[in-house]
């Protein structure tokens, strides 16, 4: 294991986040705060409780997930896409590193960043509302699993993309709708039966549901199903990445 290489990539990526702290930390925090103000304080007080939970608190896990998903993807996608775009990827490709080490460095850093961000948003939410966390450890497990899974997904997008537009396209056209329709702001049990069943095809439902369970012990789908599905997505992403490195897809002609 080339641990020095993993550390070098990880440090490099973390330093990049620090240089763009406005974009990577402050802007998601501001946008989440706005959600709280609008949906939590302003409208939330007029919305009835969901599953016995005040609406302001109910949306917190979903909001954190929303940011966690988009930030994990865009962090990891940009992290690997930019060296490809700038040409500096030559160094990583010519280095004595395995695919696993490269992924560990890039995805590890991207996941770290979004986990930190998730915790900052959680802290921000706690400043606004009274928020119980029933299972803090499980909450962290979900946070980490989701961040890693979607950073892996972002890594794939960063390798697939051949322009900045594509880099934005997937998060914008796929992930944001899935997150909004995955129950960030409502329980899918509130939907008519048909749309509830359709929602179960949305992978984000399981993440948000499981994450919410860690807070309130109430969820749309069972916590076991949520955990299993999350691990399945992670497995799929890992399998695809190992295929990428085996075939040199988009990386080595």
């Amino acid at each position, binding site marked *: 294991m080339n641990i020095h290489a993993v550390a070098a990539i990880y440090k490099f990526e973390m330093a990049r986040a620090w240089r763009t702290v406005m974009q990577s930390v402050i802007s998601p925090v501001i946008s989440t705060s706005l959600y709280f103000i609008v949906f939590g304080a302003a409208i939330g007080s007029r919305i009835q409780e969901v599953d016995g939970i005040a609406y302001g608190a109910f949306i917190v896990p979903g909001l954190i997930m929303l940011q966690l998903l988009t930030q994990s993807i865009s962090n990891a996608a940009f992290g690997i896409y930019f060296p490809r775009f700038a040409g500096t990827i030559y160094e*990583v490709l*010519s280095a004595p590193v395995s695919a696993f080490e490269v992924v560990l460095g890039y995805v590890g850093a991207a996941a770290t960043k979004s986990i930190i961000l998730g915790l900052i948003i959680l802290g921000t939410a706690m400043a606004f509302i009274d928020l119980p966390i029933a299972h803090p450890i499980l909450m962290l497990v979900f946070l980490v699993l989701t961040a890693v899974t979607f950073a892996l997904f972002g890594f794939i997008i960063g390798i697939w993309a051949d322009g900045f537009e594509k880099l934005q396209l997937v998060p914008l056209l796929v992930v944001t709708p899935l997150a909004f329709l995955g129950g960030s702001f409502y329980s899918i049990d509130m939907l008519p039966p048909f749309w509830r069943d359709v929602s179960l095809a949305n992978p984000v439902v399981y993440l948000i549901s499981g994450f919410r369970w860690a807070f309130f012990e109430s969820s749309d789908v069972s916590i076991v199903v949520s955990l299993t599905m999350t691990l399945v997505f992670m497995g799929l992403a890992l399998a695809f990445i190992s295929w990428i490195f085996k075939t040199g897809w988009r990386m080595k002609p």
Partner: protein
Amino acid sequence: MSSVQTPPILSIQGVSKTYEGGFQALHTVDLDIKKGEIFALLGPNGAGKTTLISLICGLARLSEGTITVDGHDVVKDYRAARAKIGLVPQELTTDAFETVHNTVSFSRGLFGKPKDPAVVERVLKSLTLWEKRDSQLRQLSGGMKRRVLIAKALAHEPDILFLDEPTAGVDVSLRREMWAVVGDLRKTGVTVILTTHYIEEAEMMADRIGVIAGGKLILVEDKAELMQKLGHKELTLVLQEPLTTIPPALSEFDLALSEDGQSLTYSYDTRAERTGIGSLMRLLAENGVRFKDIATKQSTLEEIFVGLVEETR
């Protein structure tokens, strides 16, 4: 020379590369590089120079053949092989916002070496980058960036250094500076493989030269021998008054008269004992041929390649 006995530091056997889409960039290339030598891969654009380097360094996948670096197969035993190689790419690709010191330290880590500020300092000083260690890369000139790329490639103390077109697109003074850098590298005992399409450059730096064209390694020879083959030069005299024919007294010279009769071109070999320029000038004066301008031109690599390719057919 004991180099005959020592195994090659780099061995390329029967290497071919066909890109997806069917373009064959290399045709069964065989080449052995001796430890400590400076080898120039000379060839026109698109000859396959960068492809060959990419295959050795792991930037492209081999279609056929084997490559070993100090006995380590670049595919099966890529960790050991790549740890011995430093690569300076053709393009000046740098992380604009990184500092010189950080980017060089990063390279060292990436290649699996523990942090060692002393090595980084030595590498930076040897490339006169020490004063610039805290500058961001975007603030550096092209020549400085090139040095940074060399420093990055040397940060893990490799045995072999690849320089892909180290002087492409740089001005004359920078080119000379690069030559000096390579000269210094020679003293450290590092094996250097560089690509270029300038004969002059291969001549200045290399011990041995390989000529590559159309994906084939046409010949590999010691510099001195090759330069003799490539020493062809032309002298053009722009005449004050046009001539209709070449004066008979000049028949012993390899002269050509332009169609409009305005200029005379003399072909000669710069390596010959006597180039004949002196006596040509004297005879021109004696025969009343006066000229207003004079120019010399080295055969271009393109012309030489055409010649070499023709020869090998």
